[in-house]
């Protein structure tokens, strides 16, 4: 079975090519089936490959398809490498991707660009699979660029609306900054090690560099730069809220479950670099911590349902970066998997809400939907519970709690990281349930239009189940100490050590986290259900702060002033192209002399004869003077 590994990315690619070649002339059912079927088949193949992989004792599988480049000994191949880390990722990508494709068949059913949508989605899934399955960094970069392209195409899917194009371009350009940093990091890796094969790097790096050597620290920071671009972390986080201009399935797939986690994958994959560069690793954690707080506070003030979820994604990926920063590699991947489930669920459910309310996205215009759309309500509630990490019953609790615990107790853990994560958890709880109460409770301000069909609700149910039970494969020490997940990854990612003597505090820490989560729900309930009148007072008193958090802490304005305006000014000043002026000047001068001399050609014959005579006189006199 494992020799069919190459089919896993190839199937979605084939689906995309077929849909592109038939240019939207296929009937909807067939186009949708091709689009979803290719990913579904890839999902089945993933399960088969996984069974084979596990039964062979988790032996990594390498499959070289062909040699891509061969220059002077540098020969990255189009080669796939499967180990437990990439298996987790392809499982999430194909499985969640498949559910989202099914959902899209319902959501995009009335859209004119139906086949185009599925073509782009398939292309995206193929690129993402290549990204995580690549055995060398060059092929991974191909996947990296591919997902960036598909993100652009899908954000700007409804291209007739101008703002969607702006959002798509914004996303692409901002991630470009990250991509450039990543490319430079790859160049440095190659010059130092002579190879870009990931396994070879993992072997060679500890022998080439002592810990904290400046080259490896630089590479660590550059790879981090690439990761923050794709994963929308500080300072490149401004594109994600605007990327909500795309259809909801796109937001679910790309901007919740998969593409934005590419940065997490990169850092986890290159963990050897970060183990050799503790400074870079600390900064991974710092960026994660700051971002999760910034995004959390911003989410508190949003009125657009999808923007709350966008900021929530940025915040939760901040948690993953925080986990990576403290060396809790498998915890970060665990949180990635659980987050993929509940965030995709939330985006799809939000999409369903928007769909039944005829594209109303303002939460303050929603309300009272609890009994009208029960399936969507319950699945949304489960997803929110998982996001807020309600104790014991949700998967989110187990994954987020592990990060909180290790932020305090881990060897590289830090009180400040723990405090940031804790405050972040509290804020998460508040904004999540603010969202729930505003959307589903209270009086109904917009009436339900047509209901969502089963194509849309069945994936919601499946994801809801996963959001509840997905966490039981990794229980904390004091609750049964099930470590199925971290054992699965232990062959690839290093284990995390805890400081001595901390185990006694585990109950206390969990208790604090649980109390804060429930307190957050109560706060949301208090201000949005019970005493709504207080909201206006508080908003009036803190208006400046509210606006500041609403605008994403002013980053858009900052970038506008520092980067966009100078650039536009320079292009306006240079509109007549200064360098061109030099060449145009040459032309002008020769033209001037041309006109001067042209006047001597008067067409009058006597002048010409006079010219000959003068010339003859000059030459004769010269000749006479010589002798």
């Amino acid at each position: 079975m494992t020799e069919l590994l190459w089919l896993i990315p190839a199937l979605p690619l084939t689906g995309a090519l077929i849909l592109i070649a038939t240019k939207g002339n296929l009937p909807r059912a067939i186009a949708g089936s091709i689009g979803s079927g290719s990913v579904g088949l890839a999902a089945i193949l993933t399960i088969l490959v996984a069974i084979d992989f596990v039964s062979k004792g988790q032996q990594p599988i390498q499959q070289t398809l062909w040699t891509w480049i061969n220059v002077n000994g540098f020969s990255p191949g189009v080669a796939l490498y499967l180990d437990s880390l990439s298996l987790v990722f392809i499982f999430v990508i194909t499985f969640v991707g498949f559910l989202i494709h099914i959902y899209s068949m319902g959501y995009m059913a009335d859209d004119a660009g139906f086949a185009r949508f599925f073509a782009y989605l398939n292309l995206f899934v193929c690129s993402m699979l290549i990204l995580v399955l690549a055995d060398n960094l060059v092929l991974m970069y191909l996947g990296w660029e591919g997902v960036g392209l598909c993100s652009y195409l899908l954000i700007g899917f409804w291209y007739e609306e101008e703002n969607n194009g702006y959002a798509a371009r914004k996303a692409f350009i901002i991630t470009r900054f990250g991509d450039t940093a990543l490319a430079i990091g790859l160049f440095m890796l190659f010059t130092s090690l002579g190879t870009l094969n990931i396994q070879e790097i993992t072997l060679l790096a500890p022998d080439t560099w002592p810990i904290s050597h400046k080259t490896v620290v630089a590479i660590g920071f550059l790879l981090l730069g690439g990761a923050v671009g794709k994963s929308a972390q500080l300072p490149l986080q401004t594109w994600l809220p605007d990327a909500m201009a795309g259809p909801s399935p796109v937001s679910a797939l790309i901007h919740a479950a998969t593409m934005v986690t590419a940065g997490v994958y990169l850092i986890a994959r290159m963990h050897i670099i970060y183990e050799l560069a503790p400074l870079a690793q600390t900064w991974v954690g710092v960026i994660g911590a700051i971002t999760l707080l910034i995004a959390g506070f911003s989410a508190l003030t949003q009125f657009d349902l999808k923007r709350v979820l966008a900021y929530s994604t940025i915040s939760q990926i901040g948690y993953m970066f925080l986990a990576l920063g403290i060396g809790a590699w498998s915890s970060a991947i665990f949180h990635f998997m659980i987050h993929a489930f509940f965030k995709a669920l939330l985006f799809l459910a939000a999409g369903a809400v928007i769909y039944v309310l005829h594209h109303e996205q303002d939460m303050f215009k929603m309300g009272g939907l609890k009994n009208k759309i029960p399936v969507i309500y319950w699945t949304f509630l489960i997803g929110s519970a998982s996001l807020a990490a309600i104790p014991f019953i949700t998967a989110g609790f187990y994954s987020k709690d592990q990060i909180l615990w290790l932020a305090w107790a881990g060897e590289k853990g830090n009180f400040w990281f723990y405090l940031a994560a804790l405050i972040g958890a509290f804020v998460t709880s508040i904004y999540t349930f603010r969202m729930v109460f505003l959307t589903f409770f209270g009086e109904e301000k917009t009436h339900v239009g047509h209901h969502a069909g089963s194509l849309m609700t069945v994936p919601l149910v499946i994801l809801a189940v996963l959001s509840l039970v997905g966490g039981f494969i990794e229980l904390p020490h004091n609750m049964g100490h099930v470590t199925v997940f971290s054992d699965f990854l232990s062959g690839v990612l290093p284990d995390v050590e805890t400081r001595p003597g901390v185990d006694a505090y585990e109950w206390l820490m969990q208790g604090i986290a649980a109390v804060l989560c429930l307190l957050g729900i109560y706060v949301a309930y208090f201000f949005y259900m019970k005493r709504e009148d207080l909201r206006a007072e508080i908003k009036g008193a803190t208006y400046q702060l509210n606006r500041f958090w609403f605008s994403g802490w002013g980053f858009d304005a900052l970038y506008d002033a520092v980067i966009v305006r100078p650039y536009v000014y320079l292009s306006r000043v240079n509109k007549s192209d200064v360098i061109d002026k030099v060449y145009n000047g040459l032309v002008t001068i020769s033209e001037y002399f041309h006109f001067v001399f042209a006047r001597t050609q008067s067409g009058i014959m006597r002048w010409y004869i006079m010219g000959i005579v003068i010339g003859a006189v000059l030459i004769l006199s010269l000749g006479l003077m010589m002798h």
Partner: protein
Amino acid sequence: MNEVSTEAGLILAGILFMLGLISVLIRRNIIFMLISVEIMLNAAGLAFIVAGARWAQPDGQAMFIFIVTMAAAEVSVGLALILQIYHQIKTLDGDAATKMKG
């Protein structure tokens, strides 16, 4: 016949040439320009004769016969061209033929 010094002959040829040249430059009428060119040709021929007489060779005379022949041919062609130009511009003013201007 009296001996005429070579210098005198050449000076005469030079003066004739200059007269012819100035005449070409000054005259506006095309036919007069042609006549002036004839004068220049004659001047050149005279210079050849004088040179031949100086060296007591018949070559100068031979050249003069060439020159006269050439002048005849040239005049016929020139007059034909002048007729054509007159056809075009309806005047014998040399300054009117400025189509090659610029």
